[in-house]
């Protein structure tokens, strides 16, 4: 799975996710990536793209929950991401990247690693796996 989350200079957020799904999957299987609110979500608060165990991400409405706790509990982006990974995935294995409308970037995962990178207008640029 690949994904991207962006906030532009006007504070507008967007996200996109694309995948081939899982190796050896049943024909006709739908994963989390195309499901808005599960693998992908964007609103005024943030933009999120998820990857990993699709069935767990669907059950947890992972991407939407990051936005929801920002909207309803007032959490900051990284706090919301950490909460969603810890409290919503149960024993599922997954990760996500996110940006907020305020220009923050965040990520979280409970797998061994996640291929990821981020850059900001302030000059941060980072690529990491583990």
């Amino acid at each position, binding site marked *: 799975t*690949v994904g991207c989350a962006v906030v*532009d200079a006007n504070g507008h957020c967007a996200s996109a996710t694309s995948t081939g799904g*899982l190796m050896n*999957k049943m024909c006709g299987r739908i994963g989390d990536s195309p499901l808005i609110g599960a693998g992908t979500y964007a609103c005024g608060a943030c933009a999120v*793209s998820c990857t990993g165990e699709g069935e767990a991400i669907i059950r947890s409405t992972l991407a939407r929950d990051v936005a929801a706790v920002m909207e309803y509990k007032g959490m900051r982006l990284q706090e919301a991401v950490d909460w969603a990974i810890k409290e919503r995935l149960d024993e599922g294995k997954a990760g996500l990247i996110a940006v907020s409308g305020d220009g923050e970037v965040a990520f979280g995962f409970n797998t061994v690693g996640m291929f990821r990178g981020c850059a900001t207008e302030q000059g941060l640029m980072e690529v990491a796996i583990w």
Partner: protein
Amino acid sequence: MVGWAIAVHGGAGVDPSLPAERQEAARRVLSRCLALGASALRAGRAAVDVVEMVVRDLETDPVFNSGRGSALTRDGTVEMEASIMDGRGRRCGAVSGLTTVKNPVSLARLVMDRSPHSYLAFDGAEEFARQQGVEVVDNSYFVTDENVSMLKLAKEANSILYDYRVPIPETCSAGAGAMQMNGLPISIYAPE
């Protein structure tokens, strides 16, 4: 005005002993995509345009398992899926079951922009792709030798159910055997 920011991912669930050259290839692709996105944001492009552009680039590179190099079904075929969401107005588009569309994320964008719906799948999505004139390719474009090998290993393991590739055996870490996922040692899991 706020500062722009961009984040990308190429999948979770990485084999702890992923070979250094595979790690380097992944870092190289991610860096290239970040630079592409950052350049567009510096130029004032809208967020929704940038996410589509960056994901298109990721889909075209076989390092990750979307688009070219896609994961395979148990029949050895490709069924790709993608979505896009514009936070401004919470507009969205999604597609599933694509077999010939070169860049699924762009078809998802067209579902959002040019259809009355949010989600099209399988034959309907392929028909919409042709109506919209998006680039299509033979299914074989998406199938790489590496993924055919991985499917064979997955079938032999008879249990790879989630979004993780089975690595070639010599890349498996013997030291990571204590952790398990889906009833299998975590060490057999590699990047998606």
